[in-house]
């Protein structure tokens, strides 16, 4: 039954969403967060997903048992509504309250979403491939270190 439920949940996901999930997980390998107040006591990397239960479930299984970064931290995936300390937040919509709660998070969205102008990493499709842009301004302010390997693969890198 569990297997059947998983298959059903994953089948409702598009391949594009699955690729985004893989990207979100890969990003955590190439980003190092500073030991800030925001992260004090946290011994994991947290990815928050907004309004997409199937993607959340898929990503949860994707990261299960996998550690990332130089400290080999586990990755936790949660619903954005229930989580206030996201390291990475994949969002679709913008509102003031949400943005205030994500002031120390890396915000990721799709280029055609209303959140793209306020995001730090923006997904887009090009030649049937999923790509991304990176805006470094906020990450530099937060002393978040983005690996040159990740920057190299971004189409555009802007401050």
């Amino acid at each position, binding site marked *: 039954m569990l297997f059947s439920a998983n298959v059903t949940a*994953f089948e409702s996901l*598009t*391949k*594009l969403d*699955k*690729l985004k*999930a*893989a*990207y979100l*997980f*890969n990003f955590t*390998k*190439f980003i190092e967060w500073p030991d800030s107040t925001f992260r004090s006591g946290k011994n994991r990397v947290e990815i928050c997903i907004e309004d997409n239960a199937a993607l959340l479930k*898929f*990503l949860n*299984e*994707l*990261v*299960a048992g*996998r550690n990332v970064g130089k400290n080999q931290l586990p990755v936790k995936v949660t619903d954005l509504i229930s989580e206030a300390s996201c390291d990475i937040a994949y969002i679709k919509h913008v509102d003031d309250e949400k943005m205030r709660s994500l002031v120390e998070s890396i915000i990721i969205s799709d280029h055609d979403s209303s959140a793209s102008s306020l995001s730090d990493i923006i997904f887009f*499709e090009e*030649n*049937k*491939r*999923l*790509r991304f842009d990176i805006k470094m301004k906020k990450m530099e302010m937060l002393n978040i270190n983005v690996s*040159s*390997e*990740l920057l*190299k*693969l971004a*189409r555009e890198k802007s401050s």
Partner: protein
Amino acid sequence: MNKPLSTPTFRFSILSFCTLFSCSNVLAQTTPSEFAELSLQELFSISTEEQSEAESGWSWTLQYRYVEYDGYLSGTDRLTIDEVLFVPGTEQRTASNFPVVPTTITQELKLLGLEYQKSPDWRFQITVPHVKQSTDHVSIVPNYDQFVIDSSGVGDITLKANYRLDNDDLRQWWLGFGVQVPTGSIDQEGDTPRAPGNQQLPYTMQLGSGTFDFPFDLVYQTNTTHSFSVSFGGVIRIGTNDRNYRLGNNYRASAKYNYLLNEDWSVSLAMDAIYRDKIKGGDQSLLVPQSIPYPASITNPNLYGGKKLVTRLGLKTNLSSDYTLSLELGKPLYQNLNGPQPKEKWQGALQLVATM
């Protein structure tokens, strides 16, 4: 007329499937775990289409490879053509000088490869080589003071399976094993000074080994923008062919560093340590009825094989989402040959890989 085209240089070069084919996961992923195993580079190559042709599991490769030999080595000592050429009346005939001497040797390989990735862990390949070789000679034989011998045709076809032994997010181990079928001719003939008309050509000018040979390799590879791979492989030969010889086994340890410049371009630097055995047995038709029966060094089975250290520089680009073009140039840094034996001068390879 020198290094068996079908043997050491070319046939070995088709072993490392990570070079010949892409080591990335082109097969369609479905489960979270399969997606988790994809590196950023692999994610870049995956189509967003639900049923992408690029993930059918099939890919093909066209490769053109060129190797040139010029000059001689005995061990690590350089020899001039004059030192290898026996001139009656001015010197004594020995086992190290010959009345016929190959000077410049060129070998060309056009290779068609087809791969099917059955699952993330299994890949199957078939490679069909077309071999062309040409050798310039000088000799003391009247009317053959300078002459050229050519041979060309289909070489030995390779069937190979590759199994992924281990894998995590950023690195993987592959074990490859297969068989080379003796489809290449070992009966190539040409006009040599040995006798009037056409005669059997030496080992090097033949297109195949004449035996069933068994290639293998073990590859460790990382998948990052600074990717690195090391491999060990070889070709094991058993039995003897219809002409009563067996080409020598060969082994290769390679290390390759690949640096991703951006999403479309990468450069690489590789180093190969190569060991090749001498030929076992011999083709009696290559001999002449003299106290030293070898008219040229390449007719002596003991003057094959040795050790080499070769460095290769490569450049690779994605022409489109389905086509990858790469160029590689190599030069030996060290050669210790069972000689006198022609030494390798340089090699180059141009390769197009396409996913279907």
